[in-house]
């Protein structure tokens, strides 16, 4: 549905994209993940035909973004970063304008607007000026204008930025509900967002793609499932010493949620590709301490990200 091949972009002589390649299958939600300044917005602006790339190719819904921008634009819904909207117009008027201009047939405009206001929970503010709305509502208006022509492809640039936690949850729920028929690219610099909503992740840094995979695979790839959380009732110093002595253990850290003696939580990391699962329990039990918990700990996307970026 979306194919991006070796995309480059110069701003003057600043290299913002250095050959970005990825593709998105029909019906997929792709997370576009990277720190600020990575080139996410730049890529999205090229895909939405706001400006052309310096080099490379991009096709959206079967149309080349450089050769047939109007065809591409007819088929996308775009939510730009920071949601720029007209302030001096009511929500309903704006959505009718957006519907019309995006080619919804005249007689279907009212229906389309009613439906999308319903979907994005905007019916209450239909007659309010957009300038009077809170950030959360504005975000939903932004999403509604993107959706109003029922596009095949949705391009959402940091859709949860600047929202409070409750609003973030609402928007994520909305986005998840949109999945299915539609192909979605969603950019973010907040990592948990991706694991919550996306099926696949493209990680981009300094204008280059550094990893493409599912959130789960990425986790596995980087860490090899060799991190354990161990909860032990025993003297902290000795416990750490014993754990470190286990064959194959690379590092032991204590989580300081409990007192110095008694129950403590430790994170045990193995040397890559070494299986230490079986070795932990006997050591603890031999010492006569109580093993309260032993479970593999998944690496968060934060950890993965730091690892991938620092590896470069």
């Amino acid at each position: 549905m979306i194919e991006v091949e070796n995309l480059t972009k110069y701003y003057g002589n600043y290299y913002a994209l250095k050959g970005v390649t990825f593709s998105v299958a029909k019906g997929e939600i792709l997370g576009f993940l990277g720190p600020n300044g990575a080139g996410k917005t730049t890529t999205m602006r090229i895909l939405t035909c706001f400006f052309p790339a310096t080099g490379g190719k991009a096709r959206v819904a079967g149309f080349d973004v450089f050769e047939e921008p109007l065809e591409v634009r007819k088929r996308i819904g775009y939510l730009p970063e920071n949601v720029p909207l007209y302030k001096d117009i009511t929500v309903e008027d704006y959505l009718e304008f957006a519907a019309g201009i995006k080619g919804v047939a005249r007689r279907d405009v009212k229906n389309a607007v009613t439906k999308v206001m319903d979907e994005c929970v905007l019916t209450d503010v239909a007659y309010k000026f957009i300038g009077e709305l809170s950030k959360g509502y504005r975000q939903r208006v932004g999403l509604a204008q993107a959706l109003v022509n029922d596009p095949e492809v949705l391009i959402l640039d940091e859709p949860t930025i600047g929202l409070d936690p409750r609003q973030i949850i609402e928007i994520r729920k909305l986005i998840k509900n949109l999945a299915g028929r539609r192909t979605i690219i969603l950019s973010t610099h907040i990592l948990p967002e991706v694991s919550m909503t996306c099926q696949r992740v493209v990680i981009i840094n300094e204008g280059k793609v550094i990893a493409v995979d599912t959130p789960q695979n990425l986790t596995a790839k980087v860490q090899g499932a060799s991190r354990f959380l161990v909860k032990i009732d025993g003297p902290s110093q000795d416990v750490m010493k014993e754990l470190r002595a286990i064959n194959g253990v690379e590092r032991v850290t204590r989580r300081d949620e409990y007192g110095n003696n008694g129950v403590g939580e430790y994170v045990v990391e193995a040397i890559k590709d070494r299986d230490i699962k079986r070795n932990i329990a006997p050591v603890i039990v031999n010492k006569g301490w109580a093993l309260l918990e032993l479970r593999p700990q998944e690496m968060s996307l934060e950890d993965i990200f730091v690892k991938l970026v620092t590896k470069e």
Partner: protein
Amino acid sequence: MRNFYLIFKKELKSYFASPIAYVVITMFLILTGYFFYNSFALFSTISFQATVNPMLAKQVGLLNITESVVRPLFGNISVILLLMVPLLTMRLFSEEKKSGTIELLLTYPVTDMQVLLGKFLSCMAVFAIMIALTALYPVLLIVFGQPETGPILTGYIGLFFVGASFVSLGIFASSLTENQIIAATVAFGLLLLFWMISFSASLAGQTFGDILSYISITTHFEGFAKGVVDTEDIVYYLLFITLFLFLTLRILESKKWRG
């Protein structure tokens, strides 16, 4: 066509959603009304004195209402337009650039041309409302005197072309910057330059002087105010409008400012 109409409608609505259009129209009417009153009052005083003293009438030769009221009226209106039109055009692109809405607008399936014409004609509609309201003055003249209707009609045709020229230049200025004050200042400065350039025509050499007075907006308006419609003047205005709309389109298309 539909896209153009939707943009036109939206722009027109937002003119009247903010106080800008009301303030500009009101100030415009106050100023033009003031000038109209002055020349009309002067005219009636002199006419009154002339009925008492026929010698005076011969001396001043001012007893033609068309010459002494209608023509100055159009002159004044066009100068006041020069001050007011930049205030109408300044927001058209600058505001969208500043707030970022241009990114959404230009990623909708519309052509740059549809956007430009929608905005241009919405501003022309406000302009037309403003000019239509001044029709009160000639109506008063017709009620109280016998002005020639010819020059009044051609005067309005002239104002229409002058206004469209001002609007096209104003839009161009607005497309250059995201700062509305700068847009208005640039538009005002350029218009004033186009207005006054004929003043230096007499100082320049023959050919160059002719070129300068051809470029000047003033030169081409004089005929209309006198009741003469010259195709050459119309061609000038059409060229002027097309040139600045074309330049604006180039600015919109130039991908540079987009980043």
